């Protein structure tokens, strides 16, 4: 029982990282209809930026806040000067643009900081607590709680503020929003900025555990994409639930199903996707999209 609880909490914690990235992907997708493959790359860059600030002698919390703020700016700039040009064109081309961005960011990181692993200080204490006889690390719990808080804040932002309303309007119909006087371009930049900031949070949360490398979040991105499809592209809460489910499930399967083990556990979410998509093509929580001819 002790191991079980431990596995579940650790699963929730890794699932939270996937969830943050998945939320970022949904944000971008809702705003611009794209899947941003560079989301993980941007997050890793934020991790490195935070690392640089720490090296410069800033306290960790300040460094992280600065890095998240910078990511917001970077995401907005990426939308304005890179993606904007391709938003109306062939979606395949736009996807490849984000792949190009990912390659570019990875390359830049490698040039500045090299491919070697760098240790990143943890925001949370590395102690553990006893819950029902299980040893649970404080970091796992705190990571999960952080993501929950961010989720609630985002939900409030989207449902309770004027900015959120405008963002939703642009996502719904850029043309009508423009006609009602909304600054569509700037709102798209805000959407991308928010997504990048969210990714940055994921980056700094996971960096102490994985240590910083340019490809740190490549696997996490794949899991996040799986969570996005599983939860449905239109449902932020669905994505988070799916991400947690994936995190917990793969942890449990790796330990309790010897045939799968740690090397094949990545197949679990995809097997799940395969089954669920065939039964429910719009995702677990997504709305069915009806296209008019």
């Amino acid at each position, binding site marked *: 029982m002790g191991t079980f609880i431990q596995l579940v909490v650790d699963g929730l914690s890794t699932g939270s990282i996937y969830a943050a990235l998945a939320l970022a992907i949904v944000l971008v997708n809702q705003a611009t209809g794209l899947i941003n*493959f560079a989301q993980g790359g941007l997050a890793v860059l934020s991790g490195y930026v935070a690392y640089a600030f720490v090296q410069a002698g800033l306290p960790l919390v300040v460094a992280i806040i600065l890095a998240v703020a910078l990511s917001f700016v970077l995401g907005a700039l990426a939308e304005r000067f890179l993606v904007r040009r391709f938003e109306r064109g*062939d979606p*395949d081309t736009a996807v490849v643009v984000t*792949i190009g961005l990912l390659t570019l960011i990875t390359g830049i990181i490698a040039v500045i900081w090299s491919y070697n692993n760098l240790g990143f200080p943890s925001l949370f204490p590395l102690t553990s607590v006893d819950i029902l006889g299980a040893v649970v690390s404080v970091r796992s719990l705190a990571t999960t709680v952080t993501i929950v808080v961010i989720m609630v804040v985002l939900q409030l932002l989207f449902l309770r503020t004027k900015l959120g309303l405008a963002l939703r309007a642009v996502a719904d119909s850029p043309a009508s929003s423009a006609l009602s006087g909304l600054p569509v371009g700037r709102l798209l930049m805000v959407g991308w900025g928010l997504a990048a900031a969210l990714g940055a949070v994921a980056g700094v949360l996971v960096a102490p555990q994985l240590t910083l490398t340019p490809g740190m979040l490549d696997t996490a991105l794949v899991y996040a994409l799986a969570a996005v499809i599983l939860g449905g592209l239109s449902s932020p809460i669905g994505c988070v639930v799916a991400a947690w489910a994936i995190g917990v499930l793969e942890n449990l399967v790796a330990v309790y199903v010897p045939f799968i083990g740690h090397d094949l556990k990545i197949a679990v979410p995809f097997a799940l996707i395969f089954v669920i998509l065939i039964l429910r093509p719009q995702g677990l929580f997504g709305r069915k999209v009806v296209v008019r*001819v």
Partner: protein
Amino acid sequence: MRNPLSAKPLSVEPQSVKPVATGNRTVRIVVLVLVAVVLLLAPLNLPPFANQTLVRIGVYAVAVLGLNIVMGYTGQVNLGQIFFVGLGAYVTAYGVKQGWNILLVFVLACLIAGVVGLLVALAAARLGGLAIAMVTIALPIVGVPLAKRLEGFTGGSQGISARFTDAPDWSGLYNDQWQYYIILLVTAAGFLLARNLVRGKYGRAFGVVKENEAVAASMGVSPYRTKVLAFTVASIFGGASGFLYLAAVQYTSPETLSFGHSISLLAAMVIGGAGSIAGSLIGGAYYVLVPLLTNAVDPGLTTVSQGAILLIVLFLLPEGLVSLPRVLRRITGRNRDRPGAPQRTVPAPAPGAGSEKQADQHQTEHQAIPDQTDQQQTIQHQTGRQDQA
């Protein structure tokens, strides 16, 4: 009813873009013969390294070609093409180890990849656009650990090597030349088959499914079956490419089918030109040459320069390198009167574009080529036909 179908080839035919196509038939045949002669004689006069590079271009051009059929022509995002390349390579390696006839091995490499592709497609094609991307992303992601696990068949992480392309004595060729001819033969056959496929009935079905599935269904083209067909054909090309890969490299490991390579293939396809046969060849060349180039410049900057090159090309030529002559002609030939070329300057309609988008694209088409009455008439003629769709 036939209008959208008959309008399609105008925008997808890569051959019509080349200046030679605007000349008469004899010129075209002469050029083709010249190209064939150059291709046949090249390996005898080139150093081994150049031959090996050409061989690898052929290998990846076939993989990109397959990807182009399912993605460029049919509009189904496929992130798992490299899985079929790896599968073909493993089947080939296994078959050669078992001492099977090499033709049988080739057929098996294509067939097994095709069957697996068919099975995946039967499930994946039921789903809408991005869901297909997710199912296909799983192929290399799951494929790598699976290849490591199935040691008896794949040699595990060590990989598996097999030599079967040493030049026979009677040919008097070096190994690299012999490999070149094998790959030239298969690649040329593959490109010819693909060209005929996309220009014929099925190619038009691909085009309609890409533009609008509802329209396709209303015309009696089943989107589901068309997608499954395109995906299966792409997998077969992937398998063939895997066979060629082993012929060229003589070794394969789980690394061959890693997700990163799949993404690079996708980038190569878009860079070369989505929905273009010639673009697939350019894509294969891009896939092989750009890493060579960036490595030669500065190995430390390989990744960053690859990303930069990718973005720069897309910025300048969003429709891929294959559109370069067309774009150049649009810039330089605006004032020249060339009655032979008018329709070819019309950009291909953006796939998935709704009626609104098409409408404003027509506007830009008109603006792009002002004050040339005969050209404008042709364009109006064409756009008129599209509007009926």
